[in-house]
Structures are given as C-alpha cells and as structure tokens.
C-alpha cells in the first residue's frame, strides 16, 4: 500500500476526493486479475464469436459479467477476511491429498494456458512480420527479467498500466463502424440458437471468462496488498470495475469482428486470421491495434500465470517460494517456474508440435478443476469459523450457487463439444 498515499491525501482535502485517492491506493488486484483474464485465448474466442455469429452472442456479456463479479467478489472477500490465499485455505481445510490433486490439475491447466499466451505472442508478432523464433524467446526473457528483477509491486503497477492498453480493442471496435442500434439491441435481447456450432461457441465465450487460476490469483493479491475488512469496500469496487472493464473489452472485440468479418462471411480460425482480415475491412490501424493488443495481453498473462502457479503449488505443499529466495533455497519453486516458461516456449516453437491437442488438454484440465474450485470456494466462504460475519448472504448464496451450477454444466458441455468436434 505504499502508493505515496499520505502525500496525495494532504493535497486533497475534501472527503470525496480522499475516498477516491484511497481507492486508487487499494485498486489493482481486481483490475489486474481480470485484465489477465482477457488473454490470448479469450481474445481468440471473442474474435471467432464475432466473425461467425455477428452480434448473435453479444447478449451473453451481461450474464457473464454478473457471474464473473459474483465469483471474484467471493475470492477477494476471503482474502480480505482470512488474510490467506485460496491454496492455503484448501490445504488447511481439506488436507494433503485434495491439495495435491488440485495443484496437479492447476499445473497442467496453467501449462496449457502459458502455452496459449506464447502462441498468442507468436500470432501477434506474425501480423507485423516478426518471426516467432525471435519474438517468443524475447518475450520469455522479458517475462523472466520483469518478474525476477522487479518487485511484486512494481510489476503490479506495470500491469495496471498495461491494462489501459486494452483500449486498443475499443478503438478497433469503433473504427469498424458498426450499426450501433443493432449492437445495442443484440446486447440486451437474448437470442439463442440450438445449432451445434452456436452452442459450442456460446459455451466457449462464457467458459473463457471464469477460470480456476484467477480465483487463486485474485485472493493472493488481495492478501499481498494487506487489504483487511476495513478497506474491503474499495476492493469490492475494484473487482466490480475489473469485471465490467473486462467484459466491455470483450464486447468491443465481438463488435469489431461482428461488424466487419461476419457480413463478408470471412472464415477465420485464429485471432491472427481475424486481425489480418480486419485490415482491408476496418482500416490498417484497426488491424495493427488489434495485433498490438494481442501481444500486450499475451505478455501480460505470461508474466503473471507461471509465477502465480509456482507460488500456489509451493506454498500449499510447504516448499519455499518467492522471487526473493535464491535457486538453492527454493529449488522446487524455480524448477516449476522455469519448467512452465521454458516448456511452454519450446513447445510453441517446435515446428510440428501438437499445439491444438495440448491446448485442448489444458482446457479439459481447466474444466475439470473449475467445478471443484468453485465448490471449495462456496464451502469456504460460507464457513462461519473462517469468515465470521462475512459469509455469503442468503440472496448472494442463491446467485452464487446458480452461477456455479451454470459454470459446471457449461464447462462439461465445452469439454463434450470439443471431444465431439475437435479443433
């Protein structure tokens, strides 16, 4: 919380202004987590959704935002009340076996996620004609330096700044000159189609918004920031703004691709196709912005994911962790971190790597893990001994359980859909 707070406070005397400054000091965890959520995988999914179904999936953004907020608010609250990370709580409550299984699944899932980030980086670079054999190793090195040489706080501030870069997508969306009336209608009026590819895309769009690792990440950053129940009100606002911002970005990506690619029936398979196809239809700048956004998102998530994963695994299993340790003091921590980054990097660069299959496997791991994590969270957040007066209210619990049930059904559907229609 050393955001030069007192100096700022002295400059601003009114109560409203000082509340705002307080918020600036507390904010971060929610917004950063949810920006990382719009990673390469997310951007790809939203692009494809817009290209294939126009504005047909825009309405999902409202329920997705609600679900995202409900789940993330619980994680943030647990962090503020207990002062402990989610992996720690699971270990202390459910023992070694459960923790080891959950952490193994998290490792597999996040290995795939890290790979997705590096291939996103490769895709973004190729749009500008930078070969992936140059950009991916450079990116991995940048991530390593940023994380190992910087402190957590400066890294968080860089990320917070990087979140602003998502405006690139909003500008891309505006440059695509959509029919705003139609866009507004499609956002508030739900429409559903039972075509198999629509269902699959629907599931993918909703499924990409809530992932297991982000629950761990958000809760840990709330703890790391030293937020207690006193400041929790600000953190809730932070989570709310993060949820809204994330889905506004997603919404603009769908709008951009829906306005340009869909009417021309451009078939796209990847985010790279989408960015390239955007060029002639929405102007060079829109395509360039789209690609830059992709590179930023990939780097951003690649810095956070492997490090966070190595942390949770080590802390919950009792191995020393942290970038302030030396390799000899925390061999497991560095081993995992390096394996995640180098492994993902190498696999992405292998000329004939089965990328799609590996990413699918990580999707499955994410999917299998998510219901358990969400159920653990609901049980933990409702434990009086842990949360005291801060358990879920009855109404909130109802929404939360419905959200969790919906997420579970959708994720299972996603896995089934991908099993039936691979690729």
């Amino acid at each position, binding site marked *: *919380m*050393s955001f030069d*707070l*007192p100096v700022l*406070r*002295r400059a601003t005397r009114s109560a409203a202004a000082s509340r705002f400054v*307080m918020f600036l000091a507390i904010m971060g965890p929610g917004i950063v987590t949810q920006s990382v959520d719009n990673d390469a995988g997310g951007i790809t999914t939203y692009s494809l959704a817009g290209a294939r179904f126009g504005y047909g999936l825009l309405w999902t953004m409202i329920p997705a935002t609600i679900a995202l907020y409900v789940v993330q608010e619980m994680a943030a609250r647990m962090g503020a009340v207990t*002062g*402990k990370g989610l992996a*720690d709580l699971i*270990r*202390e409550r459910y*023992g*070694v*076996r459960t923790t*080891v299984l959950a952490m193994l699944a998290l490792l597999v899932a996040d290995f795939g996620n890290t790979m997705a980030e590096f291939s996103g980086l490769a895709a973004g670079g190729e749009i500008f004609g930078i070969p992936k054999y140059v950009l991916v190793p450079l990116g991995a090195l940048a991530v390593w330096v940023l994380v190992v040489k910087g*402190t957590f*706080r400066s890294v968080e501030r860089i990320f917070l700044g990087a979140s602003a870069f998502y405006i690139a997508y909003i500008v891309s969306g505006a440059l695509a000159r959509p029919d705003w009336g139609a866009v507004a209608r499609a956002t508030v009026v739900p429409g559903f189609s039972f075509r198999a590819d629509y269902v699959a895309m629907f599931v993918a769009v909703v499924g990409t918004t809530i992932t297991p690792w982000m629950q761990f990440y958000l809760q840990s950053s709330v*703890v790391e920031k*030293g937020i*207690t129940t006193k400041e929790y009100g600000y953190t809730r606002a932070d989570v709310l703004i993060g949820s809204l911002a994330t889905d506004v970005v997603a919404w603009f990506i769908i709008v951009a691709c829906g306005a340009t690619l869909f009417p021309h029936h451009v078939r796209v398979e990847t985010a790279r196709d989408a960015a390239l196809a955007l060029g002639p239809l929405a102007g060079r700048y829109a395509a360039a912005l789209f690609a830059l956004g992709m590179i930023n998102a990939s780097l951003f998530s690649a810095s956070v994911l492997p490090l966070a994963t190595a942390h949770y695994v080590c802390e*919950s*299993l*009792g191995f020393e962790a942290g970038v*302030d*340790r*030396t390799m000899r*003091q925390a061999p497991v921590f560095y081993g995992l971190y390096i394996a995640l980054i180098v492994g993902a990097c190498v696999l992405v660069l292998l000329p004939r790597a089965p990328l799609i299959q590996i990413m699918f496997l990580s999707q499955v791991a994410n999917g299998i893990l998510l219901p358990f994590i969400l159920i653990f969270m609901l049980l933990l957040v409702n434990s009086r001994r842990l949360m005291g007066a801060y358990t879920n209210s009855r109404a909130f619990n109802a929404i939360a359980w419905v959200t969790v049930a919906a997420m579970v059904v959708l994720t299972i559907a996603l896995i089934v859909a991908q099993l039936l229609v691979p690729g």
Partner: protein
Amino acid sequence: MERSSERGRAEAAERARGDGEPRMLYLSQIIGKPVHDAAGEEFDTVADLVIYHGTERFPRITGILLRGDRSRVAIIPWEAVAELAPSGIRLRVERRRLSPRPLQPDEILLREDILDNQVVDTDDIKVVRVNDLELRQVGTEVRVVAADVGTRSLLRRLGLEPFVVGVFARVGRPLREKVIPWNLVAVLGGTMTPLKLGISREKLKDIHPADLADLLEELDRDERVEMMTALSDERAAEVLEEAEPDVQTAVIQELPSERASDILEEMAPEEAADVLGELPEARAEELISLMEDEKAEEVSRLLKYAPETAAGKMTTEFIALPASMTVDQVIARLRETKPDSETIYYLYVVDEQERLVGVLSIRSLLTSPPDAPISEVMRRDVISVRPDDSAEDVAGVLIKYDLLAVPVVEESGRLAGIVTVDHLIDILLEKYGPRKIGGGVDLSRRRSSREASRGA
C-alpha cells in the same frame, strides 16, 4: 525382489528410530480410524486429538473428538481412553457412560489447528507447513514430540512414501525426514489466551530481532498480530525497525491503536517517522496523538522532511556537548547516560544556540589529558551536510571521508541530527534492492543447536 528388500530396510530404519523407546505414532495414521468402546462396539471414528497447550516441552493429549460430533465441542477426556494405536482407539468405558466435556481455552485441536497449518521453526527460524505430527506413548500418556515438515512426510500422507523413498535411495540420494522437535515449534495464530501469548514469548525470546523481522514477512496476518502481541514493546519495536517498509505498514495497521503507538514510541524517531509517513494520514495522526508529547513532537517534525533527503534519513539521537566541558567530565557523562552504540562514534560540540562548533572522536577523548577542555581537543573543520541534500549525496560523503556518521546542519548552523553508517546501508539497499545483499544467511550456529537439542 529389489523393491521388497528396500522396503525391509526402510522398516528397519523405522524400528531403529524408536529403538529402546516407546512406540511412535503419526497423527495422520490415527485420524479417521475406528473408535471402539469397552464392550468392543465400533461406534464412531476419530476426527481430532486435543492437546493442552501449556508450558510442557512435549504437550500431552487430553482428549479426542469424534467424527459424529458435528458441533465439534464435545471432547472425550483422555482418561476414558484405554489404547491409542494405528488401528484405532479403544475406550475403557461403555459408549453410554461417556461424559464429553467442552474444549478448554488453552486446549488446541491437532488436526484442525496444527496439521496442514503453518508453524514457526524457532531453531531454523522459518515458517513451515506441518505435514504430520509424531506422537509417542509414555506410560499411559501420549505426547506430541515432533512436527514433520519434509517431502517424505508429504509422500507418507499421499501413500507414496515406500515407493518414492525406494526410488531416491536407489539413485543414491536418500530422502531424509525433516523433523522439528516440538519444543522448537511455535504455534502462532488462533485465540490469544494469556497462557498462549506467554508460551509464544518464551519460544521467540532467543531469536534475534532481525530474524523475527524476516519471520514477520512470511507469516499470515493473524500470526503476525500474535507475534507482535507476544513481544514486549521494546522488542516489538526492534523487530519492526528491521522489517521491510510494506510489512511495517501492514503490521501497524493490523494492531490495535494503543499497542501500535506504544511500539512506535519505542522505535527510533526517524524509523517511527518513516513508518508513519507510509500510513493514511488519519491513522498516522491518530497514532501520533496517542504517543507521549515529547516523542510525538519529534516524530511530527521529522515527518515534515522529504524521505529521500539528509533530514529524512537522519536520527535526532546524538550526543551534543557544550565546549566548556573537560575530557574527564565528558567521560563521566557518557558513563552515566550510556548512549546507544550507533550514536557514540562521534561527540558533537555546540554553542548556546545549538550551533555546531566542533566534533570529537572517542579516540581523541581517550588519548587526551583528563583535565583538557574539549574546545582544545575537538576538530573545528567539521564535514557536514544540509538537511535538503539528497540521500545519495550523504552516502557519498560518508564513503568519501570514511566517516561513521555525518552531522546534518541547518542554514543557521544549528545541528539538526546525524546520518550514521547504519543508515548509509539502508540508503544503498534502497537503491540497489535488498536481494543483492544477504538474501538468505544460514547461520551455522543454528544447525549445531538443533543437533544438540535432538541429542538431548
């Protein structure tokens, strides 16, 4: 064939560990095992074991908690237990004659509060996660003797121990147990009873404040609060001075205001000012108002200086003497006031308006005739810095002139404070990052003290 012989060796090692001593049990073996009453009827399973967390080195088990008791308050007293074995628990009374009692304030649940939780290894001075607990039967009592924290105990709980241990033994790097004798374990967090705080204080008493500050960083919020509550004001202040800035802020925010201001009062004024400068203004003001007037005034004055200047880094604790004193008188004064080590390097000579007129080293004091006035012994061309000089310039002066401290002199010539080499190191650390220097020192003395306590 090979595998089974490996296992045989592991079992032999297991037996050897308990050789000549009573049977060893693991907590993880007992949880979930059946409970039989005197009539031999199996009526429930073990949910938890209770210990009395008192002053004993190895606390004894005082009761058991059954899975069937969902409210988790009915403890079956240890007197009702006939046998505790890896296969389960046999009671000496019949089920309907059991008289459960509530959990006492100084009792803790082993599985709930300790297993899988973090404790402090007071010997290695580390926060560790407990993978298992070793229990030992002594007569009719069962006592907790050690906490297992290594990979091996993790594997045991996963049911993989024989296999993995065998593999490691074959490649010539046997996996060792990592065991902390219970008398070296400090359990922080949970309800703070006076007894518990007393025990924590006792267990932490031999640890250097700098090491406690490192621990503070690794602990969870509640555990931090307990540690700081258990320490005396002076010790808590020493610990806080050594902690990282963000930890300092967090700890002061988490402690009750009265206690927080007591600790700040004990800290060196410049350190207290640094901590207060990082707090939200309302909280800083509240804490300053709770401090005694003289200290509050000093801290408020220091708070006005920008942190990265000479004035921001200086301490206001220094020795100032009038020029009229003799060498003898000065030595007598020092003997009487017993100043802190970091301020005794140089003695400053000031006039009636507190203007700096000279400096005196301890060396020149000791080598001068006793009746000489210090105005004759002192150096008059004093190297000094201005309050608004940058911290790096101050560091440069200290290094260039090989000084142990440099005075900070205002425009008017008044001596405002001194910056010592201790602060120089802080300035350099801030600039080059703490990681480069002494990230993790392992003191050899700790290893040997552990060996000794194990042998005992």
